[in-house]
C-alpha cells in the first residue's frame, strides 16, 4: 500500500503545465487550496472540479496515475465521511439506537469528501508536473526574501530535496525490516491496538538506526562532491518566468474571483 503514494512523485512530461515555472505552480496550488476552503456550496466544487479537470487534461498525466495517489488516503476519506454522517445533528431520516443519519450529515459528509479529494488531487498535480528539484528551487527562490530575517532558505530547500529523494529508499528499508522481523516471528497483525503499536517498535528502531547510517553516508558523498552550502553555488537549470506564467497568473486570479462569486449562488439543497 505504501508504495502507492503519488504525493511527491514526479511524472515526466513536457506539457504546458510541466513547463510552467515552479514558483507559479506553488502559488497556484496555494491559491487552489485556499479556494477549496472558500467554497461553501456544491456549485463552487463543480467549478473547482472542472478547473482541476482542465489542468489534468493539459498536463497529459494519465488519470489512472493520479487516482492511485487517492487509494492511500482512502481510509481518511471514509473516516471523515462516516464521522460526518453520524455525528451531525439535524433532520433525522434514519435512526437505530444512538446512531442516526441526518440530511445535514449526508450533505456535509459529501462536502468534506469532495473537498478532501480535490485537495489531494490538486496538490499532487503540482508534484506530478514539477521535478522535485525545480519545486525545491522554486521554494528556495520564493523564500529568499525571508532569508534577510534569518530564514535559511537554501538549507530548507536542500532538506526537502533530500527528503523527497529518500522517501522511496526509506520505504524499501521499512519493507526489508518488516520482512526481516516477520521472518524472526514478529507478529504485526494480531492483538489489540496497544499491542499493535508496541509491535511497531522493532520496526521503528532499526529504521532510525539505518536512517542515521544513510545520513552519514550521504553527508560524506555530498562533501566529496564539494558541497559547501548555498553560497557560490550555481544551478544547471535556472528557473525563469515565461509568458505561460503570466497567463497562469491571470487564470488563477479569475478562478479565485469565480470561486468567491460562487458563494453567492443559491445552494442546491
Amino acid at each position: 500500500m505504501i508504495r502507492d503514494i503519488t504525493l511527491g512523485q514526479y511524472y515526466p512530461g513536457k506539457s504546458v503545465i510541466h513547463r510552467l515555472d515552479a514558483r507559479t505552480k506553488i502559488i497556484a496550488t496555494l491559491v487552489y487550496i485556499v479556494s477549496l476552503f472558500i467554497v461553501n456550496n456544491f456549485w463552487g466544487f463543480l467549478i473547482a472540479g472542472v478547473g482541476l479537470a482542465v489542468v489534468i487534461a493539459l498536463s497529459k498525466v494519465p488519470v489512472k496515475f493520479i487516482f492511485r495517489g487517492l487509494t492511500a488516503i482512502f481510509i481518511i476519506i471514509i473516516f471523515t465521511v462516516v464521522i460526518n454522517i453520524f455525528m451531525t445533528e439535524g433532520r433525522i431520516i434514519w435512526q437505530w439506537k444512538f446512531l442516526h443519519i441526518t440530511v445535514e450529515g449526508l450533505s456535509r459528509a459529501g462536502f468534506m469528501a469532495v473537498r478532501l479529494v480535490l485537495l489531494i488531487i490538486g496538490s499532487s498535480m503540482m508534484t506530478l508536473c514539477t521535478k522535485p528539484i525545480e519545486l525545491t528551487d522554486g521554494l528556495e527562490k520564493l523564500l529568499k526574501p525571508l532569508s534577510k530575517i534569518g530564514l535559511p532558505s537554501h538549507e530548507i530547500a536542500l532538506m526537502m530535496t533530500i527528503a523527497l529523494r529518500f522517501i522511496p529508499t526509506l520505504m524499501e528499508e521499512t519493507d526489508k525490516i518488516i520482512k526481516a522481523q516477520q521472518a524472526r516471528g514478529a507478529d504485526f497483525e494480531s492483538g489489540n491496538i496497544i499491542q499493535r503499536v508496541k509491535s511497531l517498535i522493532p520496526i521503528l528502531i532499526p529504521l532510525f538506526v539505518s536512517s542515521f547510517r544513510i545520513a552519514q553516508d550521504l553527508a560524506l558523498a555530498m562533501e566529496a562532491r564539494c558541497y559547501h552550502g548555498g553560497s557560490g553555488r550555481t544551478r544547471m537549470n535556472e528557473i525563469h518566468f515565461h509568458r505561460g506564467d503570466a497567463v497562469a497568473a491571470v487564470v488563477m486570479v479569475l478562478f479565485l474571483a469565480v470561486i468567491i462569486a460562487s458563494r453567492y449562488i443559491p445552494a442546491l439543497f
Partner: protein
Amino acid sequence: MSFIEVKDLVIEFTKIDDEGNEVPGKKAVDGVSLNIDKGSFVAVVGMNGSGKSTLAKSLNGLLLPTAGSVVVDGFDTRDEDHIWDVRSRVGMVFQNPDNQIVSSIVEDDVAFGPENLGIEPDEIRRRVDDALKHVGMYDQKDKGAHMLSGGQKQRIAIAGAIAMRPQCIVFDEPTAMLDPKGRARVMSIIKDLNAEGITCILITHFMSEAEQADRIIVMKDGKVIGDRTPAELFSDIPFVESAGLELPPAIELRKMAGLPGNLSTAAEIAEHIAASR
C-alpha cells in the same frame, strides 16, 4: 613529483570513554607512505578492518591525518583554504549506490557536483550530458533515481564524479553491492576512464578486479604490507594467503593444477595448458 603523495600517514579515531573523555582509539591507518602517479590504475586490497577505506577517505580530505600528510597535486589536505581544490581533483564513488545519490532525478544528481563548484549553467549541461554518455546512461537522464537498478545507480554515481572533471577518482568498493553484470559494467567504465588518463584508485575485495590494475597495494592492520604489480603479487601465493586474501580464479586454477608460478593471467594459463596437450 607524484600526483598524490602520502607520507607517514596515521589516522586514529578517538573514542569517548564512559566518563565522556576523549581517549585515543584504534589506529585505522598506521604509518602509510605511498606515491600515486598521474594516470595510473592502483588497486588497494586487504581484509575488513585493514584500513583501506580509511586510506581512501583520506585521499580527498574527508578524513584528515592525525599525523603525517597527504598532498594532492601540491595541495595539502589539511589546508582548509584549498580543500575544494583537493576534492575537485579527487572524485569519489562509494560502496552503497543508494546512499550517495542526492537528487531524485538522474541528471539533477549528476549536476550536483558541478553546481557546487559554481560552474556556468551551459557548461554544467554539457558536462552532465557528457558524463552520462560516458557511463551509458544518457537515455535515462530524465528518470527517477529510485527506478534504477543498483548497477545503474552506481553508474550515475560515477557520472556524478566524472562531471566534476577530476584528475583522479577513488572507487571505494564500488561493486560490493552489485550483481555480476553490474560489476562487469562498472569495471569496464573504470578501465575506460583510466585509458582516458584519469588516475583510478580502486578499493576492492575482489581479486579478479584488483588483477586488472597496474599496481596492487596490500594492506593489513593499517599498514601497507605489499606494493607490487599483479603478476608479482599473484606469483607469491603464500604472501597472498597470509594477507587474508583470496586468489583470482585463474591463479587458483594454476595452483590446483600445479602449473608454474610465472603464469599470471588467465590467457597465459590457457596458452600453457593448450601448449602442453
